[in-house]
């Protein structure tokens, strides 16, 4: 399941939901991404995550389906927030449940890597010198190149 929402989420309740009543689940791996308050010793301000409603959900559902195809998962969940987020706030939750811990770990890391580099979000950081759009990472550019005739 995937959800794109402005509100925060309840990590414990979401993890519980993925294992309850599923007799085949042996391990549940989760990743919680939070807004860092500092990087390289420099304080970081709040940021605003902009997204393209409709397309975000479509791409997230596609990557979740790919994870379920590649690993024997009992269930998977991706929740991604948008809007203004302060340092320390949760941004993203990925949960994978499987009979096998290795499958759960690999699928979770796969989803998180995709989200962190290719999910259709744009970040506006609040800095001491004003708001600043975060540049795309090189990995995104490479991944996107095959889609774009330049």
């Amino acid at each position, binding site marked *: 399941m995937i959800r794109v929402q402005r509100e925060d989420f309840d990590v414990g309740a979401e993890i519980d939901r993925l294992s309850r009543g599923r007799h085949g689940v042996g391990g549940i791996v989760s990743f919680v991404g939070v807004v860092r308050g500092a990087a390289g010793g420099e304080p970081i301000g709040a940021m605003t995550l902009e997204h393209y409603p409709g397309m975000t959900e479509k791409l997230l559902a596609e990557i979740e389906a790919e994870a379920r195809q590649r690993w024997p998962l009992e269930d998977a969940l991706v929740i991604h927030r948008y809007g203004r987020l302060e340092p320390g706030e949760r941004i993203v939750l990925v949960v994978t449940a499987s009979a096998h811990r290795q499958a759960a770990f690999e699928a979770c890391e796969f989803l998180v890597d995709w989200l962190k580099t*290719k999910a259709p979000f744009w970040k506006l950081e609040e800095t001491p010198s004003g708001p600043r759009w975060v540049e795309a990472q090189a990995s995104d550019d490479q991944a996107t190149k095959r889609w774009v005739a330049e």
Partner: protein
Amino acid sequence: MKLLYFAWLRAKIGIAEETVELPAGVATVGALLDWLKRRGPGFADAFRDASVVRVAVNHTYVPWDHPIKADDEVALFPPVTGG
């Protein structure tokens, strides 16, 4: 045609979305970009470097030569930064 702009493209153009009548002869994403660029200073600034513009038609990434139709939803945005 519905046009959507995101992130600094939206900021430079000054609007998030609009509905436009497609002029005759604009049949591809590339042609649309050339036409948009000439619509005013904000557009010219936003689309100066087309290599940092990504385009999705009806929620799917498309290349420059992708055909466009009057009822498409076309979104234009910078490379995504991830979550």
